[in-house]
């Protein structure tokens, strides 16, 4: 269990005696309460998958998106407090748009991740505001620089990744991601694996229904970030469900 930061955890402008800023750590806890989102970079693109929990049968299908378009060539998948995430997606969009307006070309993903990371970090400095309670994964594809994947967390740090996961099942998802040889895969192959991982880490007992959100950007989409087309998504979900059944069957054999 996490340690209690009594007295030193009331504002982001206070350090604890052992050098921690508890408000930022609590913000990261908020991300861990949210359902899982993963992003994986392959040879020719980036694929995002989000486990979107359905809390009510009355929800319209496809609403409450967790994957955003930041620019033509950049996508963002989020986990944590969704309202914070939506606000940050607007910030990212403005950054990307201003860059294009000033410099005449697409924003490089590392630069975007740095800029949004700086913005997130600014909210960890003052007692008057609270840190953002969300992490997000940014992905893009460019002909010259290839596919890129960056993750930003509530502290404002961004790292580049080949595969990353955020949210409640991130440990389990990371284990599954590590099994993949993503550097040799194409987007079409990866889409199926991403769907499978989300199905694997989804907890049938605690969380009932969920909707899978899948998006990609790469050579296959000519560098534009888009939701995966319906037919490819259905194929991927079918593959995911069949893989799960196989594993269940093999468990039975062992008995």
């Amino acid at each position, binding site marked *: 269990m996490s340690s209690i930061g009594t007295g030193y955890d009331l504002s982001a402008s206070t350090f604890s005696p052992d050098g921690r800023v508890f408000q930022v750590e609590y913000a990261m806890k908020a991300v861990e309460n949210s359902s899982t989102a993963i992003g994986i970079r392959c040879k020719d693109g980036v694929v995002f998958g989000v486990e979107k929990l359905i809390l009510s049968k009355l929800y319209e299908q496809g609403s409450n998106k967790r994957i955003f378009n930041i620019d033509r060539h950049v996508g963002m998948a989020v986990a944590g407090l969704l309202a914070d995430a939506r606000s940050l997606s607007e910030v990212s969009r403005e950054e990307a748009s201003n860059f294009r307006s*000033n*410099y*005449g*070309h697409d924003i490089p993903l*590392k*630069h975007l991740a740095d800029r949004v990371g700086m913005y997130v970090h600014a909210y960890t400095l003052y007692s008057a505001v609270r840190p953002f309670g969300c992490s997000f994964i940014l992905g893009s594809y460019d002909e010259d620089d290839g596919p890129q994947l960056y993750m930003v967390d509530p502290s404002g740090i961004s790292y580049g990744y080949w595969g990353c996961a955020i949210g409640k099942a991130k440990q389990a998802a990371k284990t599954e991601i590590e099994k993949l040889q993503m550097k040799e895969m194409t987007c079409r192959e990866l889409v199926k694996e991403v769907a499978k991982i989300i199905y694997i880490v989804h907890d049938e007992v605690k969380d009932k229904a969920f909707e899978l959100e899948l998006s990609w950007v790469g050579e296959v989409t000519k560098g534009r970030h888009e939701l995966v087309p319906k037919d490819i998504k259905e194929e991927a979900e079918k593959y995911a469900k069949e893989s799960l059944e196989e594993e269940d069957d093999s468990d039975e054999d062992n008995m």
Partner: protein
Amino acid sequence: MDSHHSYSQVKGVSTGTTILAVKFNGGVIIGSDSRASMGESYVSSKTINKLIQVHDRIFCCIAGSLADAQAVTKMAKFQLSFHSIQMESPPLVKAAASIMRELCYNNKEELQAGFITAGWDRKKGPQIYVVSLGGMLLSQPFTIGGSGSTYIYGYVDAKFKPDMSLEEAIQFSTNALALAMGRDNVSGGVVHLVVITEAEVKHVVVPGNKLPKFHDE
């Protein structure tokens, strides 16, 4: 003449000038004359440099009010340097031209300067962009500018070929500038050329007495 040329209404020192840039196989040549004039009749400098380096492989040539042009290129050089360090890579020529364009467009009421931005970058190789007086940005395989350019449109339209060799491109540029300087009274002096390629940036100066001579000289 006054009502046609905005340059002649510029107060103070102007670069009534001839500037050009041309893409060749493997790089770009940017060139200008070296005369700065005040009004129609006084030459305030015979050896001015109108080819400003804004980054390692990106140059701008300036036309119009010298003060405005120097202010804009100074600002652009600063912004480009900062941008390049943030990006951790050499800037794109398009980025340099876009910075100039933003400055020219947003301050179009006060400024009276036009530019040719040319250079080499890793992504698209040699490129030339025109940033005109009001802030238009246009990419071209070759371009001419300044008051002296009006006298050489025919020459460059007839003589330009895409994918020239370095020697052909130098000959093309020197001839074009010499012809313009021969007819425009506010262009003159020496010919400054800068050759920009992936490997290096080379300055070539052709003094007045070494310029190509034509039938009437």
